[in-house]
C-alpha cells in the first residue's frame, strides 16, 4: 500500500507545482466557451431556432464540446516528440512491450485527472454563467457516452499517426498546428458542420473528423433520430477500424525507418 500512497503524494506535489498551468488552462477554456456562447446568443438574436437547432441546444453543444476537449488531450504526441528529440526512439521501439499501449494506458489514466482538474471547474463555471447543459434524454446520454468512447479512440489514433510523422518530417511546429486546426474545425467542435454548405458537408463526411466531436454532441443535444444515431454510430465504428489500420501501417513504416536510421 505504501508505494501507492507515495506515488499519490508525489502526484499531488507536482500538481501543486503546476498549479499555474492548470489554472491557466481552465481560464483559457472558460474564455473560449463563454466567448463562443455570446457569439451564438448574438447571432441567433431573436430567432428561436436555426436548421432545426434551438439556441439552448447550441449553447449546450458549445459547453459539452469544451468538456470533451478537456478529456481528449492525448499526451502521446508529446511522448513521441520527446523521444525523437532525446534520441531514445530506438530504445523505446525495441522494448518487448507495445510502446503505444503504454502511452494509451497513461492517457486513459490522465482522463480521470482531467475530469476533476479541468472539466469539473469548467462545467461549474458554465452552469453559473451560461446554462446547465442537460442532455435531451437519459437514453441519449447513454448513447452519447458510448459514442464518446469511440471518438476518444479515433482522436487518439489520429494524434498518434500525426506524431509518428515526426520521424519523417523535420519541422513539427507547423504540422502540429495544422493537425489541431483541422481537427478543431472539421470536426464541428466550434461551429457544427450543419452550417456548412451541402457540398462541403458531403466531402467532410468522407473524413473521420466529424465523428470525433459532432456525432456524440449531436446525440447529446437530441438532434438525431434513433435510426440516424444507429447508422452514424455504425459509420463511426467503421472509421475506428480504418484509422486503426492507418495507424498500424504508419507504425510499421516508422519502425522500419528507425531500424534503418538508428533512431
Amino acid at each position, binding site marked *: 500500500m505504501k508505494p501507492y500512497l507515495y506515488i499519490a*503524494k508525489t502526484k*499531488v*506535489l507536482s500538481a*501543486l507545482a503546476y*498549479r499555474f498551468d492548470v489554472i491557466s488552462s481552465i481560464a483559457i477554456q472558460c474564455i473560449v466557451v463563454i466567448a463562443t456562447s455570446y457569439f451564438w446568443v448574438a447571432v441567433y438574436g431573436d430567432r428561436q431556432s436555426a436548421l432545426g437547432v434551438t439556441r439552448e441546444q447550441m449553447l449546450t453543444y458549445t459547453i459539452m464540446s469544451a468538456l470533451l476537449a478537456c478529456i481528449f488531450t492525448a499526451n502521446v504526441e508529446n511522448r513521441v516528440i520527446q523521444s525523437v528529440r532525446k534520441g531514445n526512439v530506438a530504445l523505446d521501439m525495441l522494448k518487448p512491450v507495445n510502446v503505444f499501449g503504454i502511452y494509451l494506458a497513461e492517457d486513459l489514466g490522465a482522463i480521470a485527472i482531467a475530469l476533476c482538474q479541468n472539466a469539473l471547474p469548467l462545467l461549474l463555471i458554465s452552469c453559473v454563467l451560461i446554462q446547465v447543459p442537460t442532455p435531451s434524454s437519459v437514453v441519449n446520454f447513454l448513447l452519447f457516452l458510448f459514442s464518446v468512447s469511440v471518438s476518444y479512440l479515433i482522436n487518439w489514433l489520429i494524434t498518434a499517426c500525426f506524431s509518428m510523422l515526426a520521424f519523417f518530417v523535420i519541422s513539427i511546429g507547423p504540422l502540429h498546428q495544422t493537425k489541431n486546426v483541422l481537427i478543431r474545425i472539421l470536426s464541428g467542435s466550434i461551429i457544427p458542420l450543419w452550417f456548412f454548405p451541402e457540398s462541403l458537408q458531403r466531402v467532410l463526411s468522407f473524413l473521420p473528423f466529424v465523428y470525433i466531436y459532432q456525432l456524440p454532441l449531436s446525440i447529446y443535444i437530441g438532434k438525431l433520430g434513433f435510426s440516424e444515431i444507429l447508422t452514424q454510430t455504425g459509420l463511426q465504428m467503421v472509421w475506428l477500424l480504418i484509422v486503426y489500420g492507418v495507424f498500424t501501417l504508419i507504425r510499421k513504416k516508422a519502425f522500419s525507418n528507425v531500424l534503418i536510421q538508428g533512431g
Partner: protein
Amino acid sequence: MALIEVNHLVKNFKVAEKEKGLTGALKSVVSRKTKIVKAVNDISFTIREGEVVAYIGPNGAGKSTTVKMLSGILTPTSGNILIDGLSPQKNRKQVVKNLGVVFGQRSQLNWDLRLGETFELLKRIYQIDNAKYRQNLETMNEILEIDTIINTPVRQLSLGQRMRGDLAAAMLHSPPILFLDEPTIGLDVEAKYSIRKFIKEVNSSKKTTIILTTHDLGDIQELCSRLIIINKGVIIEDGSLNDLIDRIAPYRQLIVDFYKEHSDITHPLAEVVEKEGARIVFRFEKANITASRLIEDISKKMRIKDVSLNEAKIEDIIRAVYKK
C-alpha cells in the same frame, strides 16, 4: 593608480525556504518564508592597471556574484564599486564601454549565424572604426587563429573554438579591463594553451587589466601575479602567489635516489617523509636551507645516483586555504 576599487561590498539574497514533504509544499502555497543568504559579505580590494588577478574560491563562495556586480549586472546591497572613478551601477553604459566580459558557461555569440556576424554587430554597437576593427581582427588571427573559424556558424563550433570566439568578441573594442569567468573550463590542452597565450599577450602589449575567476590551477600559475581568495562571501587571502606559498606551505621536497638502500641518512634541517628501497624523500623549508646546499650535504654522507626537486603543490595550498 587604482583602476578598480571595491569598498565594503555586500550582497544579500532573499531565498525562499521550502520545507520538506507534503505539509511543506502546502504551507508554501499559503505563506512564503524567506531567509537571507549573504553571498558577498563585506569585501574590499583595489586593482591597479595592468594587473592580472586570479579571483578564486570554492563553488558558491561569491566569485560570480562579485564579477556580476563589477560589470553592473547586479546591484550591491551596500558598499560601492568604482571602475576608473565611475560606478557600474550608476553609469552602466559608460563603464561597460571599457569592459570586456566573458562568461564561461554563457556565450554572447549569435548561435545560428557565422561568427563574423556577431563581430559585425559588436562593431556597430561599440562604434569601432574600420581601421581599429581590422587591426584588432588581425591580432586575433595571429594569436587565436580567428580567421579559421570566422565563417563557421557558431552552433557548429567546438567548445574550444567557441571560447576563442567569445574572447575575441570581448576584446574587439579594445577594452582596458577584462573579466573572464571560467574561460578555460572544459577545454582541451591545446585550447587552454592558446587562450592563455592570448591573455598573456593582451596583458603585456596593451596593459589590459584582467580579473580571472577560475578553478584551473594551471591558469593561476601561468597567468596571475596576484591571487584573491574568497570563501563564503569573505576574502581570506589577497597577495602574490609566491607570498601565499611562502606563508602557507614554504617547503619543498627533495627526492634522492641512492645506489643502495640506506636507512640512516638524515639531515638536521630536513625531514624524512618517505623511504622506499633506495629512495628517500626529504622535506625542507626554503627559509632554512637551499636545495643545492642540502644536496651537497647529503652527497657528502653517501653517493647520490639521482635527485629531483618538488615544489609544494598549489592544489594542496589552496585546499588548505579553503578550509580556513
